[in-house]
């Protein structure tokens, strides 16, 4: 039984079914984090532009809030250094 499972695992690996390269996994992690940050910034950015159109004083606040999700990408970047 155990042997059969092992065999199955080898077959799966040879077919390239799982992600075994640590660097590739880290790259994927950063990429997905950046995608999430981008999606978050889309909403915040359009809201910030809307608020700025009404009141110019909100430029600084809008800018800060727009780039806040960027921290997710920076945290994800840590993964690259520890693998």
């Amino acid at each position, binding site marked *: 039984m155990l042997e059969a499972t092992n065999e199955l695992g080898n077959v799966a690996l040879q077919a390239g079914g799982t992600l075994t390269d640590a660097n590739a996994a880290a790259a994927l992690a950063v990429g997905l984090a950046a995608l999430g940050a981008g999606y978050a910034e889309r*909403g*915040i950015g*359009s*809201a*910030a*532009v*809307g*608020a700025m*159109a*009404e*009141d110019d004083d909100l430029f600084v606040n809008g800018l800060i809030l727009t780039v806040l999700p960027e921290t997710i990408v920076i945290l994800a970047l840590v993964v690259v250094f520890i693998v």
Partner: protein
Amino acid sequence: MSAVGSSNPEYVVARVRARRGSLYGDEEYRKLTRMGPAEIARFMEESSYGAEINALGSRHGGVDLIEYALNRNLAEQFDDILDWSEGELYDLIARYLRKFDAWNVKTVIRGAYTDADQSSIEVDLIRAGEFDDRRIRRLLEADSIDAVVEVLEDTIYGDPLREAYAEYEETDTLVPLENAVDRAFYERLLSGLGNDEPTQQYEAFLKAEVDFRNATNALRLARSGADIDPAAYFIEGGELFTRGSLARLARNLDELVEYIADSQYGDELGPALRELEEADSLIAFEHATDAALLAYGDRLGTIHPVSITPIISYILAKEREVENIRAIARGKEAGLSADEIESELVIT
């Protein structure tokens, strides 16, 4: 902008929230009730109505100036909102704002009926709906009701008006035409709404509005005792009445009041209904329905912050503000005291 593409509630909500902050509060209303028409105009000039007061100041004066400035500002603000929104959001907002189109169509028809001159009709229009300037100009240039119906041929009002026009020719009353316009508006209002949570709340609000409209109409008919078929005034889409139940209840005032008091709106409208029974005053009931809608609107905007609901909440609050200022100005003109005017205002 248009009904294509995806919704952009974030942008519109941010702008609308900023504008909501500049609406008048209790403090401003208290000041306004103690001013004369000229002072009110000056007060408005210093707030968000400045551009409109300046543009119209040379042509009009007194309460007329306030009234036209209010209408124009309302139209401008709502036009802006339609300009900003895209996709599904546009559709949802336009549904509600089409009521200004309906208002404009009715005004033009009445003007053509009474042979009013073009400029006096024009100042009564509120250009907040979907009709563009070209269509409004063509409507104004139409000198008969037949011509008005023709201009509207390709809109949602085309077919219903065409049908009602035959009836109008027979009876020479405007009621069938006005009913046709209202019905076309309300049919579009509630058809094919989406299924997500904020849209459902919006739908509940629209249904409440239809219910209140039906209830007010029924109360008016029941009180007047006139021999009019209540079913002819029934607006589809509400939850409170069906065509049959409205026709039955409108014949008996006591039964009608009891029916409304037992409905889901009983809590909000209860005090006003008691007043209606005691003092026989419909105005209190109408104010209570307005206040209930406004309170619901205020609540609407807080549960789903990035959706259609805060926008509708602002539209309601803005409409209410315009009506309040108009009531103050008209009350001042009629020589009412500050207390009497305050009782006419709907403030939450």
